[in-house]
């Protein structure tokens, strides 16, 4: 059974379609990458899954349940977690508190602190634990958000451009992390423009264009696809 499935999902904003009869499906344990030109509707697709946008038509199924009528927080509670494109952190709060708020529903007391410390180590913000999150550099904010998203151990992790603003080495580290999480059984859907990263992690790739599924397949199939090269990849020697 698919863990995430959309059926004829459609959304438009006064004429602009950001999703047009999307039938998308993911199996548990999969790592899937969503790519596509700027404005193709990738982030909007995430917002639809999360319930921040109401679809104009169609349904969304998660883990065998129709979640279309559910509110955002109810969907999250079913086991979804997200890292947004624009870091959605609590800017006036400390880094530590950001993580505490993300984790406090699962853990408490000492195990909570221990867990937070572990996450901090991992995202290399241990020294900044007491810093105001808004004072972090852009890349550090990205890491914090990734830390918040993955630490709650969702069934489905949504990552919107996780490596934007990261150096190649950090990108590789993120890729390793994603793979490890996946090995533990987490399903992951990532939006990304960095093809190195996509190649590193993805089993399946879906290309969105003008709100429609434009192509689907393995990374090699996609890279080889002329049409994708034309609208998206350009004449890249990479990948």
């Amino acid at each position, binding site marked *: 059974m698919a863990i995430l499935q959309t059926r004829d999902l459609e959304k438009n*904003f006064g004429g602009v379609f950001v999703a047009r009869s999307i039938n998308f499906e993911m199996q548990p344990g999969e790592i899937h990458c969503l790519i*596509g*030109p*700027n*404005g*193709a*509707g*990738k*982030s*909007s697709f995430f917002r639809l899954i999360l319930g921040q946008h109401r679809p104009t038509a169609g349904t969304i199924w998660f883990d065998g349940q129709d979640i279309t009528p559910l509110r955002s927080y109810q969907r999250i509670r079913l086991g979804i977690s997200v890292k947004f*494109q*624009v870091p959605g952190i609590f800017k006036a709060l400390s880094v530590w508190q950001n993580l505490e708020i993300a984790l406090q529903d699962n853990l408490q007391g000492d195990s909570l602190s221990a867990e937070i410390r572990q996450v901090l180590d991992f995202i290399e913000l241990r020294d900044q634990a007491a810093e105001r999150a808004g*004072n*972090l*550099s*852009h*890349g*550090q904010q990205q*890491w914090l958000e990734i830390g918040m998203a993955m630490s709650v151990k969702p069934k489905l992790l949504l990552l919107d*451009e996780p490596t*934007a*603003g*990261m*150096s*190649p*080495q*950090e990108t590789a580290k993120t890729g390793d992390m994603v793979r490890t999480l996946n090995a533990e059984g987490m399903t992951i859907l990532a939006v990304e*423009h*960095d*093809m190195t990263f996509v190649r590193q992690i993805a089993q399946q790739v879906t290309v969105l264009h003008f709100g429609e599924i434009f192509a689907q397949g393995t990374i090699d199939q996609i890279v080889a696809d002329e049409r994708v090269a034309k*609208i*998206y*990849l*350009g*004449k*890249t020697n*990479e990948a």
Partner: protein
Amino acid sequence: MQIIGLRSGYGGKPVLQGIDLEVGKGEIVAVIGRNGVGKSTLMRALMGLLPATAGQILIADRDVTQVSPHKRARMGLGYIPQGRDVFPRMTVAENLAVGETLLKRGIDPDYKRIYQYFPVLKERATQRAGTLSGGQQQQLAIARVLVGRPDIILLDEPSEGIQPNIVQDIARNVRDLNRELGITVLFVEQNLDMITLLAQRCFVIDKGQIVASLSAEDLNDPETVRRHLAL
């Protein structure tokens, strides 16, 4: 542009610890370094959005350290911030119109060229900028500065969130601009492609100081750059 012993930071917290750097007219120079080392801070200080606590910034041999941002902008300094900072409740066209402020007297904005670089902006001219996708916003931020035809452009991670073929386009366009109009470019970047495609020289920052500088030859070898990015 010349920077001598520049120090700057936020409130009491120093970030830049004495940066010395020189960018010649018509050069394209990259600044690289890990997260949080102070690259964006450097850009903000150059633009005057952060006061310098010590040191000097010279543009065309004029000391501008105490000059306010809008005056620097009118002297021909264009800045494209990290995180785009478009005017969210204004339309795309209005956003671009703000960029016209930079124009020198008597010069008209060249929208044709802009729309040629970024066709999507023409399509979305009346959409509110806040509702654009991330990559579209980034394109708008770049276009907005180009409208004003600055002499020097400060670019903070221009490729972030932009689809690969447009990244290549941007790199090409910036190079064209540089060649045709002699525009000087100082940019911060983490994307290897962009760096190798664009930069003529490169500085590496760590902990608020310049720790290395790479020549054109070094840049031809992706491995060297990769190593410095991982520093």
